[in-house]
């Protein structure tokens, strides 16, 4: 069970323990290094970049808006810069360090080939507004990825430009708005299950819709009867996550989609969890009209500490004509045509507009394409299979010590959901999560979905080994027992991280967002 620590040695924890008693002059603790801010280290006359002499340059063409002084920004030499960021990097947890079970976020291994490919000069060093005949290879990447996204989802078209999942949601809903307006049938209600990710209602509201919640059944799925009962001439569509945020497959999606279509609406599927079903079922076959694909989840482009993401939206035949510009399409002669505003009037006249400048997240397209080609048809099917296998293994290995509210609802998909039911009085999910930090793991997703009390959503992903899962399960069992027994040390965890619990109330009450001398 505990292969990396066969002797069962445990670091001591808590106030007064020896590792906390030793005070150092620097505040450092051996390899755990404190690091000052660049504003405390550098100054505006220091630089890590050499330039030719600029003294004699005539600056008069700047005109009256020229500034008199250089900006007050601190600089550092190259060695100081390298050290600053290296030291900061070591205060981060990352997939490269260990299992990162953040449910719904899909923290899987990021292949290094994809990094190499994205840096090839033909992708990294081309301008978005070069003449089209000088960027056929770059457009080829977009077209090839678009092709596989359409094939993998069984849809008709794809809008590539949305810059992240929530941006893709917006794109999908705007397609629905545009399609309804084109039919002269404006509708203003979007139905969203109460288990939905917060971006769904936020996006619907941002796109000008009224949001109505649909309840869940006791087994953790959308209440199909309630949803169908609500359909009517004011309902523009539904937003459903499948697999859903409880980690379950929405069995009735096709039935729901048929009913929504019969009532004149459209089906938006939140594709955040597509990684669980890629290669096994195509959303297009379930009646979906629009679905965003988080390339940073399913196709493993790196999360980068909070982006950049990429959220292409696959579209049904009914919605494709409304997809935003720019739009790429292969021509009869094999060349790839870029449809921008210039050609849209003739070739894509119903486009609802533009989501952003240029062509979207090229740097993510190259990585995602390399990932898809590396796995191939057989590998992608194994990806979803292993992701689901790993999640079920965690679910069944922990359900005797942690409450699994939908454990009886059948196999889970790519994530296992637990609640804090059974913890000692005063102990909650956050305490177990912070205890995981001391065990050397990033916590799982906590308090989401909102439909489960003290939710803990664990997504191990397919890139974890069985031994790694066993280690994690061991840590989780130990923490579950401590939470049930009311171990006070858990209330103040983490004890061993670069920082103890941070005062978030202070940060919000007196916001300090920039450094002041």
């Amino acid at each position: 069970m505990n292969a990396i620590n066969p002797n069962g040695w445990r670091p001591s924890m808590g106030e007064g323990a020896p590792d906390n008693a030793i005070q150092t002059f620097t505040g450092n603790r051996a390899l755990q290094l404190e690091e000052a801010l660049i504003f405390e280290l550098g100054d505006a006359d220091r630089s890590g970049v050499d330039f030719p002499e600029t003294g004699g340059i005539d600056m008069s063409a700047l005109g009256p808006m020229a500034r008199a002084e250089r900006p007050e920004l601190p600089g550092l030499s190259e060695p100081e810069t390298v050290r600053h960021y290296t030291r900061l990097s070591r205060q981060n947890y990352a997939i490269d360090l260990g299992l990162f079970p953040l449910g719904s976020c899909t923290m899987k291994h990021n292949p290094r080939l994809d990094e190499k490919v994205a840096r090839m000069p033909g992708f990294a060093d081309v301008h978005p507004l070069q003449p089209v005949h000088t960027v056929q290879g770059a457009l080829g990447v977009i077209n090839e990825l678009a092709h596989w996204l359409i094939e993998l989802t069984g849809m008709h078209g794809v809008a590539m430009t949305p810059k992240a999942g929530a941006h893709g949601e917006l794109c999908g809903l705007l397609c629905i708005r545009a399609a309804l307006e084109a039919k002269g049938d404006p509708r203003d209600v979007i139905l969203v299950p109460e288990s939905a990710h917060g971006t769904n209602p936020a996006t619907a509201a941002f796109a000008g819709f009224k949001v109505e919640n649909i309840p869940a059944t006791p087994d953790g799925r959308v209440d199909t009867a309630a949803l169908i009962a609500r359909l009517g001439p004011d309902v523009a569509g539904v937003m459903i996550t499948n697999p859903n945020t409880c980690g379950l497959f929405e069995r009735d999606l096709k039935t729901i989609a048929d009913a929504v279509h019969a009532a004149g609406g459209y089906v938006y599927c939140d594709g955040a969890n597509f990684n669980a079903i890629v290669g096994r079922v195509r959303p297009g076959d379930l009646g979906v009209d629009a679905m965003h694909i988080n390339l940073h989840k399913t196709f493993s482009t790196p999360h980068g500490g909070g982006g950049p993401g990429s959220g292409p939206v696959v579209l049904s035949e009914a919605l494709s004509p409304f997809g935003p510009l720019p739009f790429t399409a292969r021509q009869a002669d094999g060349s790839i045509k870029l449809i921008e505003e210039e050609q849209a009037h003739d070739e894509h006249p119903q486009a609802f507009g533009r989501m952003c400048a240029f062509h979207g997240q090229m740097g993510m397209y190259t990585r995602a394409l390399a990932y898809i080609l590396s796995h191939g048809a057989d590998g992608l099917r194994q990806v979803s299979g292993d992701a689901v296998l790993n999640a079920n293994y965690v679910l069944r290995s922990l359900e005797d010590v942690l409450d699994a509210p939908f454990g009886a609802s059948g196999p889970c998909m790519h994530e296992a959901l637990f609640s804090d039911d059974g913890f000692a009085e005063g102990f909650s999910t956050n305490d177990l999560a912070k205890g995981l930090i001391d065990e050397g793991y990033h916590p799982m997703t906590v308090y989401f979905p909102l439909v489960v009390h003290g939710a803990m959503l664990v997504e191990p992903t397919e890139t974890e080994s069985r031994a790694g899962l066993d280690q994690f399960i061991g840590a989780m069992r130990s923490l579950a027992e401590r939470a049930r027994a009311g171990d006070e040390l858990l209330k103040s965890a983490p004890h061993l991280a670069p920082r103890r619990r941070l005062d978030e109330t202070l940060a919000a009450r007196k916001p300090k967002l920039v450094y002041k001398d």
Partner: protein
Amino acid sequence: MRYLPLTDADRSAMLSVIGAGSIDELFADVPAEARLTAPISGLPKHATEMAVERHMARLSANNTTAGSVPFFLGAGAYRHHVPATVDHMIQRGEFLTAYTPYQPEIAQGTLQVLFEFQTQVARLFGTDVANASLYDGSTACWEAIAMAGRITKRGRAVLSGGVHPHYVETARTMAKFTGDVLDTCAPVLEASADEDALIAKIDAQTSCVVVQYPDILGRIPDLARIAQAAQAAGALLIAVVTEPVALGVLQSPGSLGADIVVGEGQSLGVGLQFGGPYLGLFGCREKYLRQIPGRLCGETVDADGKRGFVLTLSTREQHIRREKATSNICTNSGLCALAFSIHMTLLGGSGLSNMARLSHHAARKTAAALAEVPGVTVVNNHYFNEFAVTLPRDARQIVREMADRQVLGGISLGRLYPQEDALANGMVVAATECTTDEDIAALVAALKEVLA
């Protein structure tokens, strides 16, 4: 498969713990008629690293790279030299493969970087505060317009004709759905920006005035004058900066009175990348901080009283507020913000100023050389590193013909404004510290040949 650690023996052992006979059984909830039994049509089986690399290298080779030819393209994306340190640092796995810092005890690296980034952006823009980044300049511009609407409770934004047309189009798309009105000045190919026309449009319904600085043709509007006119009518001034290097030698928009400053951070650290991922910059006055879209990092202390950083004011955000959130944005552009911040740290104020001076110098030399070509007129009186020229015929054609001679000489206004026939002979030309005298000579030679 090299990315999958489980062996078949592992799989069987795990299935017996679960009590399932096969992986396929775990997908029992998928309706049988929708379950795929065959592999995805046309997609080959898994491929070796070498095979994938070879395929991608072939696609890469089928492009003219900016670094391989004389290169003068800008219009919101600039080719600057990025020090090797930047890419080396952002590839550290602790940055590259970390998530959004929701668990601050083990994310102080990312959080401190964001705090430093916010401070750098605020100082560069001359604003009180800045956020932890947005998707890109165009989406940041729309978010600022939406925020101005929330603050002023007015629904009519006035846009200068000098705002990047993709930014205008992005805002127009969004406004169509939110019901905001955008009143846009027509772009004009003249030496000075449309300040009088812009000011004439401001009235008691105006939520904000949006001005690009320097603008799409490289002109440098008098922000102080526009700020005064906007604020006198109770509207906010939003300044849009698509070339942040310019602020190394130009007064900051905040110091000139802008209430919100947004921009594209791509010039520093990020690279061209065919248009993305890029980096949306967002700064504003402190009094509006609870209306800021996107993530914010703030300073606080931990249980031992040590300084630390957290994501804060999340009560504005979608995961708490759901349909009442200030914006639906979830992901930001973290790794690009890191690249920007490292590049800015390497430069420092003096380095940024030097980089800006060299870029301006290259642009001046380019403008002087082009002015000598018969039939070519430089439009601008003032500019930073980008300016407009008029050519004797449709610039789209000329740009293509220069590209055939291996010179990427500029961006035709016909590409940017296909509906504006009056601009068809215009072209914007940008230079940076990467531009050499040989590049300028090659541009002039190619243009002369094409015009001959």
